C-alpha cells in the first residue's frame, strides 16, 4: 500500500507568451520508508511536481490540468486550500534548495521551528520549545539551547539546512519532499546532510521524495527513480537497473555527461620542461570584517606557478579563499603582500592605470552567466568592446573578428544582434567565454564557470574550454568546488583550505594518493556513481 499515489499529473503555466506544459501526465508512488529519486535537468518539471502536490504552485499562472494524488485516503489535488493546510507541514513536509534564503532572516530560528507545532498540534509554547531543542540536537546542531535563539544569519549554510530539516520533521510527517536539498552546499556538508536524511528516514520510516539534478547523489539514496525531461517521465522504475542499464537515450545521455576519469595527456607534452607563465609567491589578501577588529585573512601566504599552456585546477569549499585568490592574481582584489609575476613582470603594486595594458593578457570567466553579461548590451556590443579597446579594431575587421569569436565558441553568426535574455545558460556562458578570449589573453581565470549549468551543458562547455586552451595556447586557472570536473579537465591541481594551499600536484596523483588529510576527506565526500 503506497503512502502517496500520484497518477497522470499535468501542469501548465498560462503566461502571456502562451501556454507552457510544465508537467505532462507524470505518475509515481512512494511507500513508507521508501525513497523516490526524481532526476532531470533544470526546467524538466521536477520541482513543479512536488509543489503541485502541496498546492504551493503560484496560481495563476500555474494550472493543474489533470491528475490525482492519493495520500492517506484523500486526493491532494482535489482538496481545498483549508484542508490542504492541515496536511502541509503536518503530514507532508518539504525541504528546499537554498537554506540561505529559505529561513526568514527576521525571526529567530527557534520561533520558526515551533510554528508547525503551534499551528497543527496546539502544543503549548514551552513544550514546543523543548521538542524543538531535542530535535535540533537530533539533526546535529551543537548547543541547541543557544541556537534556539540564534538568527538565521548567524548559522552556516549546512547548519541552516539542518534547521530546515528539523522544521520539516517537527510535526512528524509521513512524507518528506526534499527539493535539491544539498545543491547549494559544499561536498563535505552535502555528505553530512545526506547521511542525516538517510538516518532520519529509516528511524522514522518516512516516505521520501528526493529531487536532484545530481545523478550520483540520487543513486546513493533512492530505491525508485523517475527521470524527467521537458515535463515528461522518460524512464522510471527501480534505481539499480536504471543506473546500470538505462534504456532511454536521454537517461544514457545524462549518465554519459557526468565527468569521470582524468584528463588524457600525451607523454611527450609532459616530458618537456615548460616555462612558468605566472609565479605567485607568499601572496596574502586580507579583508576588514564587519563584526571584528581583526582583519580576515582570505588568502594566506600562497605559493604556486601556472605553466604555459596548462589548466591548473583550484579546488576548495566555499569560504576557502579560492575566488579571492583568483581575483588577487589579476589585481581585481588588492593583495596585501607577496608577489605575482607574469613572465617575470611584477604585477603587485601596479595601480589601475598601470594594469590596463596588461588586462588584455589576463581575462576572467565568471560563474553565473545570467549575472555576468550586461542585459542591455547585444552580443555584438559585448564582444566588440574588448576588441575595440585592446586590438583597436573597427568597421569591417571588427565585425569579422566578432564573427570569428562566435565561431570559436560554437555560436552561429546570427546571434550577434541578440541580447543575453534570448539565450540559455550554456549559450550565455559561451558568450562570456568569447568575451574573455576577445583580447587574445595568455591567462584566463575561470571562476566556477560550469557550476551553474546542467550536467549535459556542463560537459559541452568543458569540452569547449579544452579545445580553446589547446587552440590558443592558453593557460587557465580553473576554480571549482567540483572535484570530478577538475579531474576531468586539469593537468595539475591546487587544494585550498582556509586560505592556504594544503596540497598541490598533478591531478591524477592527488586524486589517487592524496597526502593531506583535508584532501582525503574532500575526495571521500564526492558522491560516486
Amino acid at each position, binding site marked *: 500500500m503506497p503512502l502517496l499515489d500520484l497518477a497522470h499529473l499535468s501542469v501548465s503555466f498560462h503566461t502571456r507568451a502562451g501556454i507552457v506544459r510544465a508537467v505532462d501526465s507524470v505518475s509515481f508512488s512512494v511507500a513508507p520508508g521508501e525513497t523516490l529519486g526524481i532526476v532531470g535537468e533544470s526546467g524538466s518539471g521536477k520541482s513543479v511536481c512536488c509543489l503541485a502536490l*502541496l498546492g*504551493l504552485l503560484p496560481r495563476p499562472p500555474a494550472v493543474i490540468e489533470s491528475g490525482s494524488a492519493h495520500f492517506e485516503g484523500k486526493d491532494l489535488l482535489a482538496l481545498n486550500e483549508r484542508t490542504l493546510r492541515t496536511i502541509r507541514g*503536518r503530514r507532508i*513536509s*518539504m525541504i*528546499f534548495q537554498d537554506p540561505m534564503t529559505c529561513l526568514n532572516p527576521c525571526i529567530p530560528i527557534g520561533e520558526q521551528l515551533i510554528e508547525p507545532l503551534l499551528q497543527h498540534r496546539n502544543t503549548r509554547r514551552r513544550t514546543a520549545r523543548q521538542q524543538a531543542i531535542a530535535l535540533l540536537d537530533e539533526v546535529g546542531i551543537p548547543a541547541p539551547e543557544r541556537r534556539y535563539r540564534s538568527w538565521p544569519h548567524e548559522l552556516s549554510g549546512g547548519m541552516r539546512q539542518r534547521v530546515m530539516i528539523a522544521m520539516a520533521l517537527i510535526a512528524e510527517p509521513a512524507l518528506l519532499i526534499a527539493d535539491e536539498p544539498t545543491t547549494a552546499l559544499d561536498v563535505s556538508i552535502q555528505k553530512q546532510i545526506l547521511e542525516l536524511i538517510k538516518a532520519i528516514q529509516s528511524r522514522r520510516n518516512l516516505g521520501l521524495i528526493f529531487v536532484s539534478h545530481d545523478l550520483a547523489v540520487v543513486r546513493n539514496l533512492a530505491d525508485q527513480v523517475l527521470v524527467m525531461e521537458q515535463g515528461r517521465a522518460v524512464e522510471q522504475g527501480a534505481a539499480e537497473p536504471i543506473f546500470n542499464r538505462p534504456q532511454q537515450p536521454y537517461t544514457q545521455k545524462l549518465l554519459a555527461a557526468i565527468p569521470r576519469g582524468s584528463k588524457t595527456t600525451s607523454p611527450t607534452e609532459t616530458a618537456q620542461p615548460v616555462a612558468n607563465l605566472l609565479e605567485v609567491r607568499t601572496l596574502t589578501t586580507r579583508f576588514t570584517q564587519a*563584526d571584528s577588529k581583526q582583519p580576515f585573512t582570505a588568502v594566506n601566504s600562497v605559493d604556486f606557478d601556472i605553466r604555459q599552456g596548462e589548466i591548473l585546477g583550484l579546488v576548495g569549499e566555499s569560504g576557502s579563499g579560492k575566488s579571492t585568490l583568483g581575483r588577487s592574481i589579476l589585481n581585481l582584489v588588492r593583495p596585501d603582500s607577496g608577489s605575482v609575476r607574469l613572465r617575470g613582470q611584477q604585477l603587485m603594486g601596479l595601480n589601475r592605470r598601470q594594469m590596463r595594458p596588461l588586462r588584455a593578457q589576463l581575462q576572467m570567466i565568471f560563474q553565473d552567466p545570467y549575472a555576468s553579461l550586461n542585459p542591455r548590451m547585444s552580443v555584438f556590443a559585448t564582444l566588440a568592446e574588448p576588441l575595440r579597446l585592446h586590438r583597436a579594431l573597427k568597421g569591417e575587421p571588427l565585425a569579422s573578428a566578432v564573427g570569428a569569436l562566435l565561431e570559436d565558441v560554437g555560436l552561429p553568426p546570427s546571434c550577434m544582434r541578440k541580447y543575453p535574455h534570448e539565450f540559455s545558460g550554456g549559450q550565455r556562458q559561451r558568450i562570456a567565454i568569447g568575451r574573455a578570449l576577445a583580447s587574445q589573453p595568455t591567462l584566463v581565470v575561470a571562476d566556477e564557470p560550469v557550476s551553474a549549468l546542467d550536467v549535459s551543458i556542463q560537459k559541452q562547455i568543458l569540452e569547449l574550454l579544452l579545445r580553446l586552451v589547446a587552440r590558443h595556447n592558453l593557460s587557465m586557472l580553473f576554480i571549482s568546488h567540483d572535484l570530478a570536473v577538475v579531474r576531468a579537465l586539469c593537468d595539475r591541481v591546487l587544494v585550498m583550505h582556509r586560505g592556504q594551499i594544503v596540497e598541490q600536484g598533478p591531478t591524477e596523483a592527488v586524486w589517487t594518493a592524496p597526502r593531506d588529510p583535508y584532501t582525503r576527506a574532500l575526495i571521500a565526500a564526492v558522491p560516486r556513481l
Partner: protein
Amino acid sequence: MLRFILWRLLQAIPVLLAVISITFFLVRFAPGGPFDADKAVVPEVRAALEAQYRLDQPLHRQYLAYMGDLLRGDLGPSFKYPGRSVNELIATGFPVTAELGLYAMGIALLIGGAAGLVAAQRPNTMQDYLPMSAAMLGICMPAFLLGPLLVLVFGIWLEWLPVSGWGQLPGDKILPSLTLGAAYAAYIARLARGGMLEVMSQDYIRTARAKGLPEYKVVLGHGLRTGFVPVVAFLGPAFAGILSGSFVIETVFQIHGLGRFYVQAAFNRDYTLILGCTVFLATLILTFNLLSDILAAWMNPRLRAGLNTGRN
C-alpha cells in the same frame, strides 16, 4: 548603538548650523523689515525699537549675538508680538501642530499600510488597481484642494463634521487630520505594496506556506517584518513633511498652530520668529530622521547586532 547615535548627532550639527545661517541671512536680505508698517513710525521711536532688537548693530554682530542666545536655548523676543518671546509662541503653537501631525501620521499609516498590504496580495487585479489608483490620486491632489473638497462634502453638503477649528466642536479634528494624512497615506500605500510584493516572492514565504500556516499568518507573521522596512524608513521624512506641511492645513481650517505662526512671521518679517520656527522644526526633523533610521536598522537582525556592539 551609542556610537551610531552619537555619530549621527555629530553629523546633525553642521546641518543645523547651515540651516540657521542660511535662514538668518536670507530673511535679512529679503526686502522690507519688521517695522515697515503701513503708517509711518516716528524716527525716534523707530530708532529706539531697532536698538531694543539690536537691529542698529552690524549684521555679523547680530548673527553672533543670535548664535550666543541660541546656545543658551533662547530664541529671542518676537518682533510683532510685543512682550512675548519666541519660545513662548512655539510652546503655545506646537502642541496643536504636534497633535494634528500625530493624528495625520496615524491615519496615513493605518490607511496607507492597509491599502498597500491588500494590494500586494493580488497584484495586477482590481484588488491592486483600486487602492493604488486612489493612492495615485492622493499623491497628485494638493492639500489645499483636498481640504476644501472634504469640507464641501462632509461639512457643507452632508453636515456631518465642522468645517473649521480645532478642539472647539466635537469632530472638528477629523477633517484636518484626514487632509494632512491623505498624501502620506498614498505614499505609504505605494511603499508598503512594493515592500510586500518583494517579500512575498521570497523563498522563506514559500517555507512558511509549506508549514501549513494560514495566509494571514504568512503575511502578518513572516511578510510584514521585512515588507514594511521601506515604510519605517520613510516615517522620518514623512514626519518632517507633515510638520512643515501642516501650515496649509492650519490655514485652510483656521487652526492656531505652529504653522500659522510660521507663515505670519514670514509676512511680518518677524525675524526671530521665522528663525525660531526654522531651528525648532529642523531639529525635530533631524531627530525624527534619526529615530526612523534606528528603527529601520533595528528591524534587520544583522544591523541590530551591529547596533548592539556599537558599530555601524
